[in-house]
């Protein structure tokens, strides 16, 4: 059934749009830009900032275009005198209580409020400057998230993000009127509340009120220190996104340029988290098969199914707070970033003859939760802090600019070896469903000796942006040692964004779900939509990044983790076999129960 169409005029131009469309979206179709602050394509409508006001003929008051649906015969003006004055006043009122020290602000140049202020070229303020009367509060308690209330315009995008997308609600609107702030329970420091460090609120904050704790200076210092050997690893999702902060359109694959830039910046070795993503598949795949055997054959009741992936540290912390009863279901595998760190400071340091204490491991991650993860006390299995600094994709882009590198003119370069080789299975870790697909490509082949029964190895049912995805694979012609799996229908589920994860966990808790294996990524879209990725984000931008990830996979010579020659070698040389003794020492971890309240 086609929807009812509504006819209206915007700035005297007729247009016909579906019933229920907002004035804002209708205007966008005619290429009229209306500024917004509280509106965000991923969130429910709030209508609280009023910067998007428009004039509707015959109406006494101006209408918030993001919150007003079109109606038949409506005549809208987006730039009338009344609108211009109102919009100017709205922004001016925001600025009258805004600590606008842009030159010191982390969001300088990436701020929606600053952009509006620059469009309107405000002179002397017409309203009383309230900044001196406001209590400033800078929260640097968290290793991931910095919160500065003096920059907050109370648009509540963060509150809606944390509630609607992440089902955490660590942030809420507290107090009222001129005392209203965005805060936590009892105004506690961010590090002491249920926050998962996912950074999704940062991705949607229009100002410098929320941003990542940044380690840019620490990393430069390490690079300039002649006594330090600085090794950098790059996560899968960074290579399809960093270009966005360097002038390229979303969806550009810039792997080779990113490697070249890192070399120019002075890192000693440019290595790849994709290598340890492949290693994760070996460990996690083996762990899954072992769990299945213990549960199905040995009837071992202590073994918990479904097994759940553990590469997303935002998801891990969520589970520690919200579903501690299900912690035994989590794979004990460390995230690929941490596997990299512990191997770099042991196996790799030995190989290249560098003392681990002189090695600095830097991670480039699409993620803010990984900043917290690398500071967990468990993550020191090499005898040192396994990963020293985590930079977001955004921080990397800033450093590339600081270094004066013209990114788009760079010639592609290759990762260094060893710990630089990877497969298509590893790069798809960056998109929701990717870990599941990579694991199935390998596990199915271990069990049956043949490739997964999907055209071109592309396991389409676990791909895409559906919140919760399900798939089943029937195991046929299992090898003798896996005969207990013959004919078994492997049920898997994939969720991304913690609100979707919560739904799935409730189903698992209540016993209504019958899965063997579950992949969860804390961020919407998976790591491509991570809290450390370039801003802005939207469903459209995430879709383009995901497409780029799958294109990268198709472009790889090897597309199954167990065929990564460096992975084969590390087992032969050092680790023995997957889930063996050495792996347990270096590549696996445990979890701690945390309080929800």
């Amino acid at each position, binding site marked *: 059934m086609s929807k009812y169409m509504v006819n209206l005029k915007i700035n005297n131009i007729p247009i016909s749009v579906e019933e229920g469309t907002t004035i804002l979206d209708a205007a966008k179709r005619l290429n009229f830009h209306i500024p917004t602050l509280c509106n965000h394509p991923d969130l429910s409508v709030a209508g609280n900032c009023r910067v998007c006001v428009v004039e509707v003929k015959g109406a006494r008051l101006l209408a918030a275009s993001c919150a007003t649906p079109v109606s038949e015969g409506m005549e809208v003006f987006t730039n009338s005198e009344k609108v211009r004055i109102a919009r100017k006043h709205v922004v001016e009122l925001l600025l009258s209580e805004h600590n606008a020290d842009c030159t010191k602000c982390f969001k300088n140049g990436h701020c929606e409020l600053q952009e509006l202020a620059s469009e309107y070229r405000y002179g002397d303020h017409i309203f009383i400057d309230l900044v001196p009367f406001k209590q400033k509060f800078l929260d640097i308690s968290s290793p991931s998230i910095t919160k500065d209330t003096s920059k907050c315009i109370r648009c509540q995008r963060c509150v809606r993000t944390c*509630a609607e997308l992440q089902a*955490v*609600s*660590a*942030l*809420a*609107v*507290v*107090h*009222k009127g001129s005392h209203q702030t965005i*805060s*936590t*329970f*009892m105004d506690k420091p961010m590090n002491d*509340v*249920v926050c998962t460090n996912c950074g999704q609120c940062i991705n949607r904050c229009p100002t410098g009120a929320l941003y990542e704790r940044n380690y840019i200076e620490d990393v430069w210092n390490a690079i300039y220190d002649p006594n330090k050997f600085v090794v950098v690893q790059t996560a899968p999702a960074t290579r399809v996104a960093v270009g966005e902060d360097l002038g390229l359109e979303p969806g550009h694959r810039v792997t080779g340029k990113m490697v070249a830039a890192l070399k120019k910046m002075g890192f000693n070795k440019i290595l790849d988290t994709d290598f340890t993503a492949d290693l994760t598949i070996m460990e996690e795949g083996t762990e899954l098969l072992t769990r299945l055997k213990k549960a199905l054959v040995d009837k071992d009741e202590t073994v918990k199914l479904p097994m759940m992936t553990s590469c997303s540290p935002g998801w891990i912390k969520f589970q520690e707070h919200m579903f501690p009863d299900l912690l035994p279901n989590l794979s004990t595998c460390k995230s690929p970033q941490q596997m990299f760190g512990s191997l770099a400071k042991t196996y790799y340091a030995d190989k290249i003859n560098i003392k681990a204490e002189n090695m600095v491991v830097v991670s480039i991650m699409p993620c803010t939760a990984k900043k917290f993860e690398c500071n967990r006390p468990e993550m020191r299995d090499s005898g040192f802090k396994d990963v020293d600094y985590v930079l977001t994709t955004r921080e990397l882009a800033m450093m590339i600019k600081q270094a004066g590198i013209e990114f788009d003119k760079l010639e592609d370069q290759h990762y260094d070896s060893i710990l630089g080789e990877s497969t298509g299975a590893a790069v798809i870790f960056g998109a929701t469903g990717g870990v599941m697909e990579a694991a199935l490509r390998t596990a199915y082949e271990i069990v049956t000796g043949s490739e997964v029964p999907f055209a071109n190895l592309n396991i389409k049912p676990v791909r895409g942006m559906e919140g919760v995805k399900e798939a089943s694979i029937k195991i046929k012609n299992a090898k003798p040692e896996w005969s207990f799996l013959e004919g078994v229908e492997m049920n898997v589920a994939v969720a991304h964004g913690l609100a979707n994860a919560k739904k799935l966990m409730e189903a698992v808790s209540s016993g209504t779900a019958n899965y063997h294996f579950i992949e969860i990524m804390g961020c919407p879209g998976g790591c491509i939509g991570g809290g450390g990725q370039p801003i802005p984000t939207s469903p459209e931008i995430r879709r383009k990044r995901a497409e780029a990830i799958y294109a990268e996979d198709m472009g790889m010579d090897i597309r199954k983790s167990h065929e990564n020659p460096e992975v084969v070698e590390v087992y032969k040389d050092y680790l023995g076999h997957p889930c063996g003794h050495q792996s347990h020492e270096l590549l696996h971890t445990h979890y701690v129960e945390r309080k929800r*309240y």
Partner: protein
Amino acid sequence: MTNTENFVHELAEKHGRTRNALMPILQGVVARDKYLSEEAMIAVARELDLSAADVYGTATFYTFLDTVPRGKNVIRVCKTISCHMHNKDEIIKALEEQLRCKVGETTSDKKFTLLTANCLGWCHKGPVMLVNDDVYPELTTQKAIEIVQEYIRKSN
């Protein structure tokens, strides 16, 4: 379960566990304890499967849902324009002297907290004050002191 948890549990049994039970439950706690302690807010969040921050946000929105400890009797003198023009400042001064505590404070014996409030809807009979849930209109400094003395007598 602690005493507070038990009490909140009973309130939830009575009012239900949907989001719109939040207000009556919070009011129930305040009616007994005079304020919402951290423990009480956590207990409410747990009963209703809400985040603690959400409960705190709601509590701090409402002036009458206090989140800091209050005395046994809470006095709120209206500070809005009509009462202001009817000398609410005099009333406050008298009460401060009588109770030996300032606006916003609680007496050392924890029997009274002295606060101001926005318009209480009794503008035609200002100045006005609330003691707990009881309204006292058309105050004079003398009257206000007598009312407080009456509460002191009752609580002895």
